[in-house]
């Protein structure tokens, strides 16, 4: 078996068990996705005119991915794998075939059995979708052809040269982003009076036109050929060669370009996109706060929404004339000072009892606190003070002299949120390298050691709670002024979890990561109540957030844009193993460690 050179496998020399296993999973996930109702619900969103909708896409990616997985080789030290060949393509195709067969079975099942009683999506709508409004035979043929084809493509990804693979991925992901960002591009081109551009790409009824898809696919596929890794090498050379002074100057230039863009762009965007950006900003603010608590200090606070609620309710009580008990009707600025005080108090009050607890207990207890606070806001007991389930309405717009920030004008809200976000980013950035920030990271990595090194763990942890609380309360305050009312319903535990997903997907402890995370997740999928770019996702958001959380934890716990320290922490074991394998590897892993 372990001869030095092995030719490619014979065509039918397959690992049947493996194919059956992955094909079975492929089949199950396709049926699951159909029955959860993703295809029928998302079918409304058209990606490519009269060809592809988001609903179909949700079935189609499965054979591709599983075809890729099933033909993947496990590379072991000292054992040479057989050369990939037609046999691998066949295994991919068979996996796709198994998946498609499950869809055929599903179609037959829907026609002949009535299972609508428990399964709400076992209905003619799904049947029509699966058969392409045609007969079962037609639908089966199409699905089998598509499944086998996609499985083969997935398997062949291993055998393409890296150049072609790159072109392929560029084209696929580029097209996908173009299709998803339809509203944004539409809006932008309208703002810049370039309607012809969006008219050219997108069809009238939504979705890209077939021609533009092909043209764009070709252009995107050519992109890596033109760039040819020049970008990467330039960046790498720049990183290693440029003097610190030049680097600083360049990052200042980059920063001002981004700043100008962020300030100017909203004027060219319509109301919906601005609203979306404002929501992204609100959640970014929350996420930056949680990033300090979870990402830097390593305290898993699941009741983070409590501070959000404190900010919102304090603003409501102090500015709204409808506040039932105490209504000074102050200006937003003054109420903001009170918000800071209240949030600090809340941070101390919630933080102090939990500070001595170990990580997982802390998570559940803070979750409990979050629920207690929501239940108190909801209860009859505090109704005379905080309005119970009716909440507090009629919160006035923020009056800033010449400008007014109100919910009806999302652009103004966006600027308001932006100001707070900039403050939050500055604070977290400065804190990260400060004595306190380093203390937090030390606590995250090993509390006992940190304590022995002379860090006052109790005070540092409390500070993390307080800073996080203040940032979250700012977000709550702006939200209250934006929506004009606060209800206990807006402060459910869900908010905490979604922010946690944002922080984890972005990369715990990384400011850029959190920004990317909130832009991608909140912008595209949407917040707990706020719709994102893909409004059709409304009912499936949480399903996807849950799946994303599990996936990230399993495959990339350090997040999309990780910090070096965190990566090392999470993959410590691998480095150690490499070190154990042999001296050469140890040297290599050291280098890897240093690079990271």
């Amino acid at each position, binding site marked *: 078996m372990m001869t030095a050179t092995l030719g490619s496998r014979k065509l039918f020399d397959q690992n049947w068990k493996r194919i059956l296993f992955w094909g079975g999973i492929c089949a199950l996930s396709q049926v699951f996705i159909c029955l959860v109702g993703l295809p029928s619900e998302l079918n409304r969103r058209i990606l490519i005119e009269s060809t592809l909708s988001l609903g179909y896409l949700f079935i189609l990616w499965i054979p591709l991915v599983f075809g890729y997985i099933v033909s993947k080789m496990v590379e072991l030290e000292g054992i040479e794998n057989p050369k990939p060949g037609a046999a691998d393509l066949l295994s991919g195709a068979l996996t796709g075939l198994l998946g498609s067969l499950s869809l055929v079975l599903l179609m037959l099942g829907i026609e002949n059995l009535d299972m609508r009683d428990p399964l*709400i999506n076992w209905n003619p709508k799904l049947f029509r979708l699966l058969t392409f409004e045609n007969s079962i035979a037609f639908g089966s043929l199409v699905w089998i052809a598509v499944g086998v084809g996609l499985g083969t493509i997935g398997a062949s990804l291993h055998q393409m040269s890296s150049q072609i693979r790159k072109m392929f991925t560029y084209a696929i992901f580029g097209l996908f982003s173009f299709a998803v960002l339809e509203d944004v591009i539409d809006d932008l081109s309208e703002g810049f009076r370039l309607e012809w551009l969006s008219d050219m790409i997108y069809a009238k009824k939504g979705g890209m036109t077939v021609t533009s898809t092909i043209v764009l696919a070709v252009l995107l596929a050519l992109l890596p050929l033109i760039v040819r890794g020049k970008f990467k090498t330039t960046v790498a050379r720049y990183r290693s060669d440029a003097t610190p002074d030049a680097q600083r100057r360049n990052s200042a230039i980059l920063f001002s370009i981004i700043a100008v863009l962020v300030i100017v762009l909203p004027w060219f965007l319509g109301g919906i996109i601005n609203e979306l950006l404002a929501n992204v900003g609100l959640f970014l603010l929350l996420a930056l706060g949680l990033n300090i608590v979870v990402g830097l200090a390593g305290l898993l606070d699941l009741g983070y929404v409590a501070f959000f609620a404190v900010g919102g309710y304090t603003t409501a009580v102090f500015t709204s004339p409808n506040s039932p008990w105490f209504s000074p009707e102050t200006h937003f600025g003054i109420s903001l000072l009170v918000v800071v005080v209240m949030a600090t108090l809340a941070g*101390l009050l919630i933080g102090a009892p939990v500070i001595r607890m170990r990580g997982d207990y802390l998570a559940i207890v803070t979750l409990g606190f979050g629920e207690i606070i929501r*239940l108190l806001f909801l209860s*009859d*007991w505090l109704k005379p003070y905080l309005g119970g389930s009716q909440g507090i309405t009629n919160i006035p717009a923020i009056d800033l002299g010449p400008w007014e920030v109100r919910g009806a004008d999302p652009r103004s809200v966006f600027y308001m949120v932006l100001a707070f976000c900039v403050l939050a980013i500055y604070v977290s950035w400065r804190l990260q390298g400060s004595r306190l920030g380093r203390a937090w990271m030390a606590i995250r990595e090993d509390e006992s050691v940190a304590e022995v090194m002379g860090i006052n763990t109790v005070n540092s942890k409390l500070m993390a709670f307080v800073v996080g609380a203040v940032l979250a309360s700012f977000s709550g305050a702006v939200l209250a002024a934006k929506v004009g009312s606060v209800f206990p319903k807006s402060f459910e535990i869900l908010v905490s979890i979604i922010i946690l997903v944002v922080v984890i997907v972005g990369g715990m402890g990384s400011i850029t990561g959190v920004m990317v995370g909130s832009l991608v997740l909140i912008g595209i999928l949407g917040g707990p109540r706020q719709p994102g770019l893909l409004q059709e996702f409304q009912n499936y958001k949480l399903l996807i*957030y849950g799946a994303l959380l599990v996936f990230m*934890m*399993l495959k990339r716990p350090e997040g999309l844009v990780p910090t070096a320290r965190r990566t090392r922490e999470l993959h410590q074991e691998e480095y150690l193993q490499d070190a154990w394998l042999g001296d050469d590897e140890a040297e290599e892993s050291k280098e890897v460690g240093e690079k990271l």
Partner: protein
Amino acid sequence: MSKIVKKRSKSRVSGVDRFLNFVRFLMATLIVLGVVAFISQQIWPNNPFAEWRNPDARGLTGDQFKGLVVSGLSQGAMYGLIALGYSMVYGVLGFINFAHGEVFMVGTMSGWITSEKLNDAGLWESNFILSLFLIIFVAITTSTVTAIITERIAYRPLRSSPRLIPLITSIGVSFFIQNAVLGLFGPASKGYPRLPEWLSKQRSIFTVEIAGTKILVMVVAGLSMAALWYLVERTQTGRAMRAVAEDKEIASLMGINVNRTIVITFGVGGAMAGVGGILWGLLFRSVTHMTGFLPGIKAFTAAVVGGIGNMGGAMAGGVFLGSAESIAPMVILEPLGVPGVSQLKDAVAFTVLVLVLLFKPSGLFGEKLSQEDRA
């Protein structure tokens, strides 16, 4: 010398400790005050304190009080059954399986589907006992399978990672299962079919009026607990589980298949949650995709109250928590003049969690754990 030591020890009492002592004192005072106010209200309804705080309160009649205790106990029995799963997994793997509440919900949901099919077939009315066994069987199977699958997919690859990682993963699993069930079965609340008259009617046992369903709940919970006790304490598998909980490496050196044992632990925890799910369905007769969330957290609270990793403690903690959340609002909060106390049931349960961790972090029946394992 002694002076310096004194000074040091003085400075070690930080502000946080002082604050915590204050909170402990405050909470204890409130509880004592509430209980005293309640008792004095019972004895002398128009005492000045009651007049001041809560002039409308009548206090509780004996029957009302017994009713509260009984419903608390039956609810607590279910919390206890769910708490067993938390406790066992915590004992073996040392992490909180946040998705366990969802395992319970899946059991309730599958019980609903089966019971409805049985109702359509007429078996539910003609032979209730058989159908009860059937739905319990189905629920146990579904919950066990769910628990084992989640272990295999989500937790096994993470066994060696930092402690918070599996916890965060289990939050994701919890949301995924919740929303998958929402997608599959829809958002509407699903009602269990009507129970036969002979079961649900009120009975009087030792002057306590109690619905038959509640008796059933307590009996089934007791039986499951006994079966579990037998499994853990008297069988080879149980010994393996205890050994793995003690020390995984040594256990594997002793020839125990650690992976298999962990799977069994998840499975048994899931089975208990499945039984709890059926009991929940019979008692409240409705289930939605959110059914598992609150009972899950409360069951975790119960596990902590009883001392996590301790199975008898989990059951006792469940019963304690169930009775506390049913009695405390009427006995402690109402005499202090808090209106709408029944809304604060859940808040009371969470407060119990905080109080237990403040006063006795190892739980009421927990062994003294090492510094490393302590909360």
